[in-house]
């Protein structure tokens, strides 16, 4: 009792620390006070905090390293790149990003409008058929279109046979290895992002607003421009940003179709071991990505529409009338170009490949490599995401949200940058792990951890914090609470996240390509290598397997949007 009193008085005294008191102790106390304040007086357990902090650091160090390297690349190199390469790359990258984004948004929005709001035959089936291009990795799509439209491709061979075409248009006019080739492939395989987001918002759109507009004498077209489009704007914005970020980060399509944007330039600079230039280009690309993310944050804040839920009425379905046939043709063409034709090409070449014995021991070796590195990465992601999401949701503070944001660094930035940083870090500071399977797995974790985090977070938000407190009051320390109580509650979400990471890892190309240790090629790497050498019969079976695996989380993706 009397001791407690003393403690209390001491507390009051230590603000005006006496002259004789040790100043370092005062500093320590001050820090401790700050520390407590930053956690709102409720700091997490040490084990948990360190786990989270460690993960956050692992996630961001490679990228920090790239920035660091680029800052010390030397003025000369900077000047040379700024004078010569960077303007050209900016132009290439920027024009491609804008063109693909615009066109994909246009296709995505029109398709979703047709499928959700009109009486097109088979609209329920179209709703998920048109999302199918999501399961085809764009670099696989690029390969199929090189086969179809490229030099010595199907169309060119057919062109030669038909004399009137040659007479009218002259030589075969399509050059797939060009801006337009890259633009076409990227558009065809990214539009589903907009399609899904726009469909979801169209389905949620309240009919009341349209009825009001109609009662004020607007026709369907006016309603579309004045009522529907403003409601769709957030969805369009979100979809556009997803696509823009994708185009910025894509490596496979761009490299295979021999167009050069930042990612390809970084890869090739690295391939010729001009790592200083590679890091400079990486820094510029990072800035570009950050600008887009910043735009996203800005627009998202501005455009929050709330629809009143209690008076919700399903939107009505418009009759297409004489437009039925053209609309159906449009939908069919897009579906054919983005799904049917690529699959036909792959099946055709796979059949040839299997005939020629492409499915040999080596092939299964590659498949096994893909499988184990992806499994390992997804398990790591499931484990590592737990402390971060737990910290973020149960101990909200500046520190935990910084850890959370750090973890998104590798997700937002292109894979080539992550790989570049990994090479720096591992070769110089972690030689034991350099050039091992683990290096690839860690790169995959850095790239895809946020997918596991998002899935886990969604589940964790449904678990009351009272559950944790109940467990703690029953004598379990925080880390044990996480394992015994939280994990079983959110296991389905965590597993779903793991599955997403698994599929992303199977598809991942640039980081795997740059980091693979000797003798460790994956299916994705083989698709890239063989397709570049025009050995399509070897590339097609691997691509087909990747697509089959990608179908697994499609249901989850469709539900998410």
């Amino acid at each position: 009792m009397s001791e407690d009193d003393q403690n209390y008085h001491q507390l009051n005294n230590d603000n005006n620390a006496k002259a004789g008191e040790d100043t370092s102790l005062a500093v320590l106390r001050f820090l401790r006070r700050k520390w407590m304040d930053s956690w709102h007086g409720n700091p997490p357990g040490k084990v948990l905090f360190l786990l989270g902090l460690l993960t956050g650091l692992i996630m961001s160090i490679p990228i920090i390293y790239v920035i660091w390297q680029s800052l010390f690349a030397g003025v000369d190199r900077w000047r040379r790149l700024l004078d010569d390469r960077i303007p050209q790359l900016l132009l290439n990258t920027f024009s491609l990003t804008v063109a693909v984004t615009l066109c994909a948004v246009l296709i995505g929005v029109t398709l979703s409008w047709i499928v959700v709001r009109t009486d097109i035959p088979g609209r329920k089936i179209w709703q998920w058929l048109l999302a199918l291009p999501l399961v085809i990795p764009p670099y696989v799509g690029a390969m199929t279109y090189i086969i179809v439209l490229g030099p010595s491709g199907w169309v060119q061979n057919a062109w030669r046979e038909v004399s009137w075409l040659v007479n009218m248009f002259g030589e075969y006019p399509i050059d797939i290895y060009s801006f337009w080739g890259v633009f076409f492939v990227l558009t065809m395989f990214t539009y589903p992002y907009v399609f899904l987001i726009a469909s979801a918002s169209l389905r949620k759109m309240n009919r009341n607003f349209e009825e009001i507009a109609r009662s004020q004498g607007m026709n369907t077209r006016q309603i579309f421009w004045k009522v529907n489009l403003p409601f769709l704007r957030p969805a369009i914005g979100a979809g556009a940003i997803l696509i823009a970020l994708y185009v910025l980060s894509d490596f496979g399509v761009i490299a295979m179709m021999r167009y050069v944007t930042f990612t390809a330039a970084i890869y090739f600079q690295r391939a010729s071991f001009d790592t200083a230039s590679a890091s400079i280009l990486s820094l510029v690309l990072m800035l570009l990505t950050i600008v887009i993310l910043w735009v996203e944050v800005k627009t998202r804040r501005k455009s929050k529409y709330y629809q009143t839920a209690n008076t919700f009425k399903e939107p009505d379905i418009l009759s297409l009338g004489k437009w039925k046939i053209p609309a159906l043709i449009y939908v069919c063409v897009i579906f054919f170009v983005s799904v049917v034709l690529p699959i036909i090409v792959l099946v055709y070449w796979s059949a040839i490949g299997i005939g020629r014995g492409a499915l040999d021991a080596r092939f299964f070796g590659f498949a096994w490599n893909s499988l184990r590195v992806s499994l390992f990465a997804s398990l790591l992601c499931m484990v590592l995401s737990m402390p971060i999401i737990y910290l973020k949701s149960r101990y909200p503070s500046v520190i935990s949200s910084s850890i959370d944001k750090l973890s998104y660094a590798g997700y937002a930035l292109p894979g080539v940058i992550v790989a570049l940083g990994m090479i720096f870090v591992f070769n110089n500071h972690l030689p034991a792990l350099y050039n091992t399977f683990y290096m690839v797995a860690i790169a995959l974790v850095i790239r895809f951890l946020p997918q596991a985090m998002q899935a886990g977070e969604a589940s964790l938000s449904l678990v009351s914090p009272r559950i944790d407190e109940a467990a703690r009051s029953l004598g379990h320390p925080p880390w044990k609470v996480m394992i015994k109580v939280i994990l079983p509650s959110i296991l389905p979400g965590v597993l779903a996240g793991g599955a997403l990471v698994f599929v992303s890892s199977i598809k991942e190309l640039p980081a795997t390509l740059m980091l693979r240790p000797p003798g460790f090629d994956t299916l994705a790497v083989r698709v890239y290598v063989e397709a570049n050498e025009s050995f399509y019969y070897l590339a097609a079976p691997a691509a087909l397997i990747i697509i089959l695996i990608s179908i697994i989380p499609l249901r989850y993706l469709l539900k998410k949007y």
Partner: protein
Amino acid sequence: MSYIQLDHVTKYYNRAATPAVDQLTLEISEGEIITLLGPSGCGKTTTLRMLAGFEKPTGGSIRIGDEIVCDDRRSLPSEKRGIGMVFQDYALFPFLTIEKNIMFGLNKWKLRDKKKRVREVLELVGLVGFGTRLPNELSGGQQQRVALARALAPNPKVILMDEPFSNLDAGLREKMRLDVTNILRKANATAIIVTHDQKDAFSVSDRVVVMNEGIIQQIASPKEIYRCPVNCFVAQFVGKTNLVSGRLCPDLKHVETHFGRVCVPQQTNKELENVVVSIRPEGCRLAEYGRYSGIVERATYSGEYQELHVRLQSGDHSNQPMVIYAPVEQEIEIGRAVTFNITPELVALVN
């Protein structure tokens, strides 16, 4: 010496100008059931969570049993405090059976002891035979009892209950008050219950702590709290009351109000001239020739009684009408004059 002691406990939330709990000092003896009563935001839940270790006080110290669990230097994590907690939403682990839920806190016990203890507490809460069910297969009241059983199982030093009855409907609520009290008494547990409902507080606890704005207003037995609220806040928060200002008569046993002299139960020792008295509506009994009179302005029928608003006949018309409870069988006409007496036991001087 008291069993649990909170000494000048203060809690500031981040960047808040006023404390959520301000210099709270409270002593609780072993086996006692205490209720923290107050409106939402009064600091009662914060106090409970500080006891449990889910929040760290900004200042002050807390002792449970022989152990100082928290002072300005260190703070014992809640898992080491030996508390049992029952939450408003029960927080039963949905993926564990009732048995496993109860065993959860017995992690260091031998398996045979665990089983024995589970049987004991299930018996105590009257749920023998429910052990293998999952929480969502039980009714609200049953879940409540499981939550209590789970908290009691490890023989905690103190049971903390956060709004234990607020999720139950009226009928069940009354039964659970009784059940919980019986269980706690049988287990001879020390318990601290947080509630905003005075009926909960009065029916289960030995002592009630009324709080407002982070400050303890009054600590007393339920009866005393009701009959002798120390200030306006307590008087108004605990049941309906009429607050009337007046002047203390020199005999210190009567108060001169605008409608007449009112008798207080005991001679006060306060040397004040201007005072406020609280007069409970049920302390005013209609009588044929009562001491006080007024005109009925409004009558509300509420089942057990009729609530009358009576405009008192006095010189000052700006005063509030008096609230009086009348028996339901009595015919009341609006606009008629009534007379009544005031029972001194339900009159209190308040600050």
